[in-house]
């Protein structure tokens, strides 16, 4: 039996799924997340915590920062990675994607190709990180979870995210292609 021709291998492990399948399943797990952890899915908040840990590792301190002043934030920082649900989930996303890629024999290391890509990654990353903090989240937290939570802030975020994406597309075509 050639596994590559097996119907279920192709369906679940090999072939790309339609976008709508992704939408339904992501929604399912979003709801599971809210029901089981008491909070919706979020990605970028965790990254600020990672930043704080990295900063502390090189001798810095965020204890006087307003952002980390709350009791909850202090507890998270002190508890470390292994007790931080959001961190575990973010790492899970990376590993889940890795597993998906390997099971479909699609894993390939794609090295950086040009200086344009380096600048794009640095600039893009910084913009996303900063923007997510002042906007109270990223495409998952502020947008997906915000709208699902029936918060008007989610919709406002959506409008400006869309405008930003248009502006970003113009920059992309002009400078990064």
């Amino acid at each position, binding site marked *: 039996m050639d596994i590559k021709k097996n119907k279920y291998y192709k369906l679940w492990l090999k072939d790309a799924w339609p976008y709508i399948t992704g939408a339904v399943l992501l929604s399912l797990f979003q709801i599971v997340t809210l029901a089981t952890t008491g909070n919706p899915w979020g990605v970028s908040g965790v990254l600020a915590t990672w930043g704080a840990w990295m900063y502390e590792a090189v001798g810095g301190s965020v204890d006087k920062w307003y952002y980390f002043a709350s009791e909850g934030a202090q507890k998270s920082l002190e508890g470390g990675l292994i007790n931080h649900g959001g961190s575990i989930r973010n790492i899970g996303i990376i590993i889940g994607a890795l597993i998906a890629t390997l099971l479909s024999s*699609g894993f*390939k290391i794609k090295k950086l190709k040009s200086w344009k890509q380096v600048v794009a990654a640095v600039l893009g990353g910084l913009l996303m990180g900063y923007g997510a903090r002042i906007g109270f989240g990223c495409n998952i937290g502020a947008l997906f979870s915000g709208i699902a939570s029936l918060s008007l802030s989610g919709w406002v975020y959506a409008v400006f995210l869309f405008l930003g994406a248009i502006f970003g597309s113009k920059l992309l075509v002009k400078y990064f*292609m």
Partner: protein
Amino acid sequence: MKEVELDCNGEACPIPLVKAENKLKEMEIGDVLIVQIDHSCAMKNVPEWARKEGHNVEIEEIDDGEWEIIIEKVK
């Protein structure tokens, strides 16, 4: 009937699609464009766009994480 290869390996999305669109504009009806990609998004959005435009499209997986999208310009 010309065959043109477009190497988009290592490009971030949506660059393979934009490059493919631009290249196909320069080509004649009946020509074949072969887009080489290693981006999983592109193996979906390039064929989707090409089919929407009415062209004949075939996807070939040529290696782990590498595909060739073969587009025959129809109109």
